[in-house]
């Protein structure tokens, strides 16, 4: 293998690839954070809101989980500007809105992430023992306080493994945004391959870096789970 392909500077493609990797990581982190916050709210709406509203959000989650990510990305990219313009027209503002491919990619991946997150959150909240909540209420806690002090801390622990899995899903969904022209990691590798005719070397490098990211994420998950569950007695201790 010709390592000079990956050198930094004008001669090699190292710096272009690193730039693409940065875009990919930014995309993953942003869409994970936005999607997790939105999905948590969606999950709580599904659990506690009146029936029609809860059904609406459940339907959203079902559709989002059944349709290819690639389609969601294309549709968001084509539609985002159009929808924003119509929205502004409601307020009498008539202007062209163009949404960058990166922003559309973040939005699309966050929408998908939110749909999966709401499922995880619902399961985690339901897993909190009812007796604990009754005890909290019996002690005189108002529902909001009981939710904040009892349900949430426990549900967060139950949700953690599911959310960690979804982080991996987001990472593995990032290459799809290259289809709308984001110069992400795989997009840059494609450009490098096109110019040098060494597709195999570049795409193999991309694959290996993704494997490192998922390996590091798995280790991080184990370390954090050990910390989160340190008070829970295990069979060994």
């Amino acid at each position, binding site marked *: 293998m010709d390592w000079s392909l990956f050198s930094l500077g004008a001669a090699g493609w190292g710096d272009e690839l690193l730039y693409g990797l940065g875009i990919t990581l930014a995309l993953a982190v942003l869409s994970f954070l936005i999607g997790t916050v939105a999905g948590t709210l969606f999950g709580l709406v599904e659990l506690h809101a009146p029936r029609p509203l809860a059904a609406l959000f459940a339907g959203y989650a079902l559709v989002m989980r059944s349709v290819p990510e690639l389609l969601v990305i294309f549709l968001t990219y084509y539609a985002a500007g159009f929808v924003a313009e119509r929205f502004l027209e409601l307020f009498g503002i008539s202007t062209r809105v163009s949404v960058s491919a990166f922003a559309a990619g973040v939005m699309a991946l966050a929408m998908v992430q939110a749909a999966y997150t709401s499922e995880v959150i619902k399961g985690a909240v339901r897993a909190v023992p009812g007796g604990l909540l009754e005890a909290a209420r019996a002690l005189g806690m108002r529902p909001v306080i009981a939710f904040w002090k009892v349900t949430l801390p426990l549900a967060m622990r139950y949700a953690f493994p599911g959310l960690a899995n979804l982080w991996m899903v987001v990472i593995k*969904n990032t290459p799809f945004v290259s289809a709308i022209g984001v110069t992400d990691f795989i997009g840059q590798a494609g450009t490098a391959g096109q110019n040098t005719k060494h597709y195999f070397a570049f795409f193999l490098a991309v694959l290996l870096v993704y494997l490192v990211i998922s*390996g590091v994420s798995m280790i991080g998950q184990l370390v954090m789970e050990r910390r989160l569950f340190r008070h829970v007695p295990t069979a060994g201790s």
Partner: protein
Amino acid sequence: MLMDFETALGYLPVLLDGLIQTVWLTALTLVIGAAIALPVAWCRNADSTAARAFAITFVFVFRGAPLLVLLFLIYYGAPDLPIIRQTVLWEAFREPVFCAILALSLNSAGYLSEVIAGAVRAVPRGEVEAARVAGLSRFSVARHVILPNAARIGLRAYGNEVTFVIKGTSVASLVTITDLMASANRVYYSTFDPFTPLIGAGCLYFLFVLLLGRTINALERRLSVGNA
């Protein structure tokens, strides 16, 4: 408005042609993915350390690698290798459909082998031992005890996996295959209306996922008869 029904009706045959491609890709991936996953799952539960190490590495690589990266490595990258370019393998690797199904099957096998291996491990040991003691051969035990039990346990996870395969087939549109996703984009390029074809394609994907999901759920219920 967002949906234009005249466009939708006029271009529905184009989308349906794409859907047929998507159904084919899904079916072939499910079959070939399972054919790859079975031996890997067997290795995963084997006594030999080497076999287990192989299975764990296989799962780590094909579950950890994004589907699109795997596809591009095979589709764009494989022709760089003399062993593919200069042998009979080239006849297969020059076909986008072959590359897409190979990438999809390897990716699916990564997930599926864990589902199968986990389901087989979950079969109660006592039942297997009882069947052996009763004089059933190894094959009969596998056929009459492990298989029905494991199918019952693994079917729900398999249903999820099938959904991922259906969604995954859309990457084929990025290597010149006119599946449902590509057909929708084609209608967009010729009508300049992105919403009608993409939302239409979304509905078709949704129906396909729903239909297959329902079928697998029904199968699971049928298999669980007599098991509380």
